[in-house]
């Protein structure tokens, strides 16, 4: 197999990947303007994009760093509320495009700050303790969003009454761009010294430390980046639904994201993308399945862990260009083989 792979040089790889992504986008938007993809399907596609960002960002900590935080929905909530409050405040006084861009950045920064605040104590602990402590923080975020107004004495998050009338600015194009940007950033980060440091912590923290890697720093960094991207997903969600309630960001949501990551394969970005897409579309497709969805999710968690702990994709990362290289290699390989046999 290896012999037949044609190595494609980097600039061409980028071109191929960019072309593939553009093609996917153009096909979907063409279908949608032709009316094949209705408004309803567009909504589902946006939801898929949001879930992909959530899964990919959680995968950074669970798959690559090897820790198990259970409060990912909390960061999403922080991003969603930051963005929602911002959009409500500036709506009308700023061009929409700029406001949306700023709201995404703001959501990422605020969620990242929360990730930092929570990461500092949480990452001093390992395994089960980290899981519990992040779960606790996730719940605290929810409780604070619910009750902060009565402490502040003015309406900020509107608590249980929901933050309403957020401008609905999330389009499929925006969500798609965010997915591409988030996946690109995580991918390039993982292929650098920063990414290798994160992986080395998952593999063996003590050895990593003895290689001169400041593990606490890199753990916190991964955690902050993961939280920031969850915040971006939250911002998209706020602009998608237009109304936010703390109840939407409970423990259940965190578990749903975890199921996507575990099923796709911890440490595989393409696995997260595929399973987030499938698991978000499935309940819409199989409406009759709704009753059994959570039972199926929990069973999936158990069965995947027992029979295929590496998930659907393992740590495999799909490379479109490698696939093309392999295909070219095969075809040319066959040709040379044919030539040889002809001779």
């Amino acid at each position, binding site marked *: 197999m290896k012999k037949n792979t044609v190595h494609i040089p980097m600039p061409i790889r980028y071109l191929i990947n960019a072309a593939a992504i553009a093609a996917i986008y153009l096909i979907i938007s063409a279908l949608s303007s032709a009316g094949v993809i209705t408004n309803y399907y567009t909504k589902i596609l946006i939801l898929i994009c949001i879930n992909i960002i959530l899964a990919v960002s959680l995968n950074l900590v*669970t798959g690559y760093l*090897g820790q*198990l935080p*259970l409060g990912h929905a909390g960061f999403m909530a922080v991003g969603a509320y930051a963005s929602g409050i911002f959009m409500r405040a500036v709506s009308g006084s700023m061009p929409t495009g700029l406001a949306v861009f700023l709201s995404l950045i703001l959501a990422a920064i605020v969620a990242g700050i929360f990730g930092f605040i929570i990461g500092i*104590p949480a990452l*001093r*602990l390992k*395994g*089960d*303790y980290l*899981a*519990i*402590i992040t*779960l*606790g*923080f996730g*719940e*605290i975020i929810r*409780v*604070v969003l*619910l*009750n902060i107004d009565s402490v502040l004495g003015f309406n900020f998050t509107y608590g249980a009454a929901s933050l309403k009338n957020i401008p609905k600015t999330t389009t499929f194009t925006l969500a798609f761009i965010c997915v591409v940007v988030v996946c690109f950033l995580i991918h390039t980060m993982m292929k650098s010294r920063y990414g290798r440091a994160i992986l080395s912590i998952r593999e063996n923290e*003590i050895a990593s430390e003895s290689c001169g890697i400041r593990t606490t720093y890199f753990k916190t960094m991964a955690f902050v980046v993961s939280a920031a991207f969850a915040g971006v997903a939250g911002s998209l969600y706020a602009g998608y639904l237009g109304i936010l309630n703390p109840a939407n960001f409970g*423990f259940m949501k965190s*578990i749903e994201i*975890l199921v996507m990551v*575990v099923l796709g394969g*911890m440490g595989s970005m393409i696995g997260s993308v595929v399973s987030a897409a499938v698991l978000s579309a499935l309940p819409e497709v199989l409406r009759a399945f709704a*009753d*059994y969805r*959570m*039972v199926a*999710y*929990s*069973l*999936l*968690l*158990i069965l995947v*862990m*027992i029979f295929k*702990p590496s998930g659907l994709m393992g740590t495999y990362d799909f490379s479109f260009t490698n696939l093309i290289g392999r295909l070219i290699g095969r075809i040319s390989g066959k040709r040379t083989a044919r030539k040889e046999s002809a001779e």
Partner: protein
Amino acid sequence: MSVLSMIVSQLINGLQSGSVYALIALGYSMVYGIIMLLNFAHGDIIMVGAYIVWVTMSVLGLPPAVGIIAAVAGCTLLGVIIEKVAYTPLRKSPRLSLLITAIGVSFFLQNIAQLIIGAGSKTMPAIVSGPNLYIGSVNLSFVAIVTIVVSLISMAILTILVQKTKMGKAMRAVSEDMGTAQLMGISVNKTISFTFAIGSALAGIGAVLYSCAYPQASPTMGSMLGLKAFVAAVLGGIGSIPGAMIGGFAIGILEAFVSAVGLSVWKDGVVFAILILVLLIKPTGIMGREIKEKV
């Protein structure tokens, strides 16, 4: 009501819920001590226990004694089955896999209960009833007295079991060093199953006491209860029996006083804040020992 009698009343409120926490915390602590697993499903075993009480007493109309026995036996069995089906195949796997499985089991129990019985809560008749006692102006409910006394007796029995019996010795040996214990001829599998059985039986007793005090069963009742009990176990020092008791009572009393001063909304937040503080300042808890990774 004077301030003093008010404080005593709140103390008793705290002791009542604290004794249930303590019973559940013991289960967490024992299981964690032996296989280093945070058994997320432990809280949900209590939920199943409460439903067993509901089925036997409300649906089948059987007397309380049958309900109590059925709940304890059912929980014990469920604990062992969970261990055999979900955890044993993963004993050699990374900790992360085991933890995810435990979360899976917890969610499975919750959702299957919701699917079969429905999301709404079910009420059950009073398991024990008796007159309220008055000491001065302090009002002592009968249920509170029963809860506190029964949990203290259970903990005393458990202590004897672990300290004096052969099986208890085996449990302590396995938690110390699984490999060596096996070489000494202790059946590790049997001991772990036994630990799950004991822990789950305690959860069964906890479920009955919980049902006495709060006669409702709902699919998600176990998750918060379980988490708080876990916090209690960590506070007391995981793996330590007296620690779990102290932790349970401490959390119960803390919650009572937080509510009493009007911060009930922040109760869960305070409990988790305590957890975070304990883990950062003294990760071994009040009674725990330090375990260091060998380099």
